[in-house]
């Protein structure tokens, strides 16, 4: 009887530990969530309403730190941008598409210190331009997120030149 009681306690404790590991959001999960949200806010459905777009751009702003270093050599874009400027860049890019989806693959997250997360990932844009052409672009991206008031915010967004002309 005593043996059975201890077995029950052990099982409950094991289930509790497993639940904590899988259900409680660890820092890596939080970082991955921010990246997935970024993809969701940048993506655009066909016939998107202006209000929806404005809401998404507002949400997009909230994912970035006060200042974010952006480097995108293929688009001749580099510099430090404010949240509003990043959202503005995204809005202008989305304007050229009737619909688009931004997805991320092969994420590797590392934490050089507790307040910084470095992520290497592959970003894929698929969609249709407003001129009716199919667009598919894949890029490797290095990004850095900083933890501010418990939230992970994008601090650096850099496109890696996999093929250099």
């Amino acid at each position, binding site marked *: 009887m005593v043996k059975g009681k201890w077995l029950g306690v052990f099982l409950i404790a094991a289930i509790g530990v497993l639940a904590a590991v899988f259900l409680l959001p660890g820092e890596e999960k939080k970082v991955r969530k921010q990246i997935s949200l970024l993809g969701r806010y940048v993506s655009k459905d066909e016939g998107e309403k202006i209000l929806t777009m404005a809401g998404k751009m507002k949400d997009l702003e909230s994912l970035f730190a006060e200042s974010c270093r952006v480097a995108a050599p293929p688009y001749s874009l580099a510099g430090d941008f404010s949240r509003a400027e990043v959202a503005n860049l995204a809005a202008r890019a989305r304007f050229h598409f009737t619909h688009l989806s931004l997805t991320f*693959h*092969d*994420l*590797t997250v590392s934490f050089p210190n507790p307040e910084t997360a470095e992520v*290497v*990932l*592959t970003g*894929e844009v698929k969609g249709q331009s407003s001129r009716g052409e199919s667009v*598919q672009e*894949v*890029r*490797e*991206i290095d990004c850095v997120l900083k933890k501010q008031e418990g939230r992970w915010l994008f601090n650096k967004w850099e496109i890696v*030149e*996999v*093929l*250099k*002309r």
Partner: protein
Amino acid sequence: MNGAGRAIRLFFLPELRVGFFIRAGLVGLCASLFFGYACLPFWVQGGSMEPAYRQGDFHFCWRGRYLFSEPKRFEVVNVRFAGSRVMLLKRVVALEGEEVEFRDGILYVNGEEIEERYVRYRGDWNLPPRRVEKGNIFVVGDNRGVALENHYFGQTSRKRIIGGPLW
């Protein structure tokens, strides 16, 4: 039922014993390791390698190809991004230290014209000469009918070459 008939029946309708589940698990594990790390299945998306590799073609990337050898000119290779989920499929046209250029759609390496039999859609590409840096190779797609600005090509680190298509 004779011996052969029983063997056939057991092959298609095996008895669900512990041994069966162990064998099935081992087969699943080996397949997942083989197709997850050694021989990666992939679909061709886009037409940058046409006509050799067309949109929608199904292939395998053999990761062992360049474990003990280096990519050679004209070989088709898989170039990785951050991982192997999305890769580029390109042809090697110049190696480390070589000078590569395009003049009116013709490829020149170290100033010599290179015959490219695999190119069917030739454009009028013009790219000034450039040297392939140490540890890099220069890759291009076969479909030169695409405008130079819209074609993703250039030199990449040898470390990014993770294998080549099986066929």
